[in-house]
């Protein structure tokens, strides 16, 4: 049984956390994540979610509390954005090292300065290497679904790692749209009770988080690399199970009208949906453009990417952040690295768009498609371009 209703992605996520019976919510409100935390505190106060709501004094404390409560075997949830995620930074590394299956929503927002509360992907790109599973939603339904899935995957004993669900601030967090809300029985049938792999227990004491001397640190980090890479199998498996159970399919890399496309554009997050509109408009004009939507960011889905790109000669990548003074677009740089040793590799054209809440209209996608066709014709790869920049 599911109910079709109109709500913000933020409210949908909070309801998902409630359906998943989280034991602990430890979060500090920050725009544009605020509505999640507000709604969860209401659900707890109204007795609909039997959780401890820990009103911490900072995100650093939020993630610290999450590590502690997850370590004693509580199903633990938090949410943040931007500066809040940045303030968590040093604790974020601890959670996967200790195998703590925390679930966190990130309402993606730019980083200061200048001060900006609006949407881009600077926050998550700065936390690329923390060892968490990282996935992106494109609409409120996906934000809800992937939150439920995140608990299932995180707590899978083969994985036992924290999971970050990214969804675009404002564009999704503050937008009401139709959502199919599953009922509790359906969610419970998908999400078994949390059986921690390891927990702090007075009857069977363990010490978590000891010193890693040089003799052991190398091995511990190899374990983290292997664990996150090997999480790929359980990720695909649990996403498939989600599709069978709820009727909505998710894949590490999604495509849109890509099969016969001459040029491809890769997006992450909600703007993939505007991009689909742009693709449809181009298709109406007989131009064979297609879309790749990178859903899974960590572990990076190399094989899915290779399959999706195939023998296509031109691939555009639309980044939502800049790696200053480096390879420009953080996603594009990884895509290029992924193809470096492949015989068959596309020319990669880099774009950055939608920084700090700048609207990305259909015409911006047209600019990108024009550039891709130009590369297809001439073989020349232009310098990375900041789409919409006033020059």
């Amino acid at each position, binding site marked *: 049984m599911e109910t079709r209703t109109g709500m913000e992605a933020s409210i949908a996520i909070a309801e998902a956390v409630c359906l998943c019976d989280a034991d602990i919510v430890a979060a500090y409100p920050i725009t544009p994540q605020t509505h999640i935390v507000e709604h969860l505190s209401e659900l707890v106060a109204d007795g609909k979610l039997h959780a401890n709501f820990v009103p911490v004094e900072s995100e650093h404390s939020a993630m610290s509390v999450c590590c502690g409560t997850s370590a004693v075997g509580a199903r633990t949830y938090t949410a943040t954005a931007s500066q809040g995620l940045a303030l968590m930074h040093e604790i974020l590394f601890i959670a996967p*090292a*200790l*195998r*703590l299956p925390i679930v966190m929503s990130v309402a993606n927002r730019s980083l200061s300065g200048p001060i900006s509360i609006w949407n881009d992907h600077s926050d998550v790109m700065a936390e690329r290497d923390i060892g968490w599973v990282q996935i992106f939603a494109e609409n409120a339904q996906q934000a809800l679904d992937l939150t439920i899935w995140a608990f299932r995957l995180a707590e899978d004993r083969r994985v*036992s790692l924290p999971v970050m669900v990214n969804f675009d601030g404002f564009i999704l967090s503050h937008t009401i749209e139709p959502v199919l809300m599953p009922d509790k029985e359906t969610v419970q049938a998908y999400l078994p009770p949390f059986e921690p*792999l*390891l927990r702090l227990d007075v009857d*069977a*004491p*363990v*010490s*978590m*988080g*000891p010193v*890693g001397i040089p*003799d*052991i640190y*190398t*091995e*511990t980090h*190899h*374990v983290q690399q*292997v664990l996150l890479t090997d999480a790929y199998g359980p990720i695909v498996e649990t996403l498939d199970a989600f599709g069978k159970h709820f009727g909505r399919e998710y894949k590490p890399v999604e495509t849109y009208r890509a099969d016969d496309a001459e040029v491809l554009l890769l997006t992450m997050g909600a703007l993939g949906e505007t991009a689909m509109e742009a693709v449809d408009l181009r298709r109406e004009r007989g131009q064979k453009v297609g879309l790749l939507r990178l859903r899974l960011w960590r572990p990076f889905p190399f094989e899915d990417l290779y399959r999706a790109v195939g023998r296509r000669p031109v691939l555009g990548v639309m980044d939502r952040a800049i790696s200053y003074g480096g390879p420009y677009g953080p996603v594009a740089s990884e895509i290029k690295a992924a193809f470096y040793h492949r015989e068959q590799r596309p020319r990669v054209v880099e774009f950055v768009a939608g920084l700090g809440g700048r609207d990305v209209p259909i015409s911006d996608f047209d600019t990108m498609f024009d550039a891709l066709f130009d590369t297809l014709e001439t073989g020349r790869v232009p310098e990375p371009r900041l789409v919409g920049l006033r020059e």
Partner: protein
Amino acid sequence: MRRQSAKPKWTELAVGSAIDVPGSARYYKTGDWRSSRPVWNSEHCIRCGVCVIFCPEGCVLFQPDGYPNADLDYCKGCGICLHECPTGCIRMVEEED
């Protein structure tokens, strides 16, 4: 990490690199840090127990004879017992002597 003589391979690490043997710190004998050790003069010792309380390692204990002494497996030779002793009955002896 399990206590074992050979250094563990990455496949041999405990989950989350946790220490799953309770009280395993006792296997770590800090006594080999010591360059000098405390010696009690039982003629002057009044058995007040100040050294027992102040020992940061918790290794000074009353012995069956009723007088305190240090467990040399763990005594680091810090000398705090000597510093705190109200009667001056403790002296430090160089390990080489």
